[in-house]
């Protein structure tokens, strides 16, 4: 069965570049691109919501159906 991938939105207005989401993503989906967090490999995402939960700045949203 094909898994459903979420949509990940990162707000450059809110992201402060702390690395927390990148570091604690269990599947290495995210990376820092310049100052901001960015999606590197959405295919690996398991929609665990860890990044959204831990972001201190309301900057990353994991939108599932």
């Amino acid at each position, binding site marked *: 069965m094909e898994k459903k991938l979420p949509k990940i939105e990162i707000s450059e207005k809110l992201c*402060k570049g702390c690395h927390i989401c990148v570091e604690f993503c269990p599947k290495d989906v995210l990376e820092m691109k310049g100052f901001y967090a960015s999606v590197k490999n959405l295919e690996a995402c398991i929609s665990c919501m860890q990044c959204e939960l831990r972001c201190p*700045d309301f900057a990353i949203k*994991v*939108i599932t159906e």
Partner: protein
Amino acid sequence: MAFDYEKWIRPGKLPHIWCPGCGHGIIMKGMIRAMESLKLKKENTVIVSGIGCASRLPGYIDCCTLHTAHGRAAAFATGVKLAKPEMDVIIVGGDGDGTAIGGNHFIHACRRNINLTYIIMNNNIYGMTGGQFSPCTPTGALASTTPYGNPDPGFDVAKLAIGAGATFVARGTSFHANQIDKLIAEAIQHKGFSVVEILDDCPTTYGRRNKFKSVIEMMNRLKDIAVPVKAAEKMTAEQLKGKVLTGVLYKDDTKPEYTVEYDKVIERAKAAK
């Protein structure tokens, strides 16, 4: 589905003032999830703070809020609760605000067992004013005012609260983000004085000075030192060295609550006339 934090945030208030990686934002999000899970009403919820980075929190939340004087949040909250006992009143603030200048208000609020929830965001330092040591700075740690190492032992906030008479005491950390909302929700539901200590991270004035390479290192330390109370029961004293217990540490539903007792005083005073 992504959680709708915006519902509880005052329009146009983000980004908040906290530094990159500051745990205060993680705690504020946990608090919002707790208020939402309990279906609290904005018009019936009051958040009260003192002064400090942590105490800036009420400015962001779209409900009834009070940003008061340094260390005095518990006193203001007591007044609000006595006037409006039907409202959910939550105090937030830092370790400096709550255990240094506000230490006296804190212990006496615990002693009265008034139905308030106190969320203490303990980052072991005065963050806002540039990193002076607080009563929660560990022995040996570096602060702007202890450049050769802090000689004082730090307070154990949870033990202090239990000793002073709080009837619900819990501890979490900014690393254990998922647990923060559950602890706060349980604290709000408890009918009596509840204290939730969240071990927090201040990468700017504590982390750097104490040789943490990044906020990630601070997070990993919180992960390493935290032991859930249940797990601790099966551990030896040796294994528990350097660890801190997390979860609900104390709960007592038998003690009289202050606003209820105060109503009785009013009745007695009326009858005596």
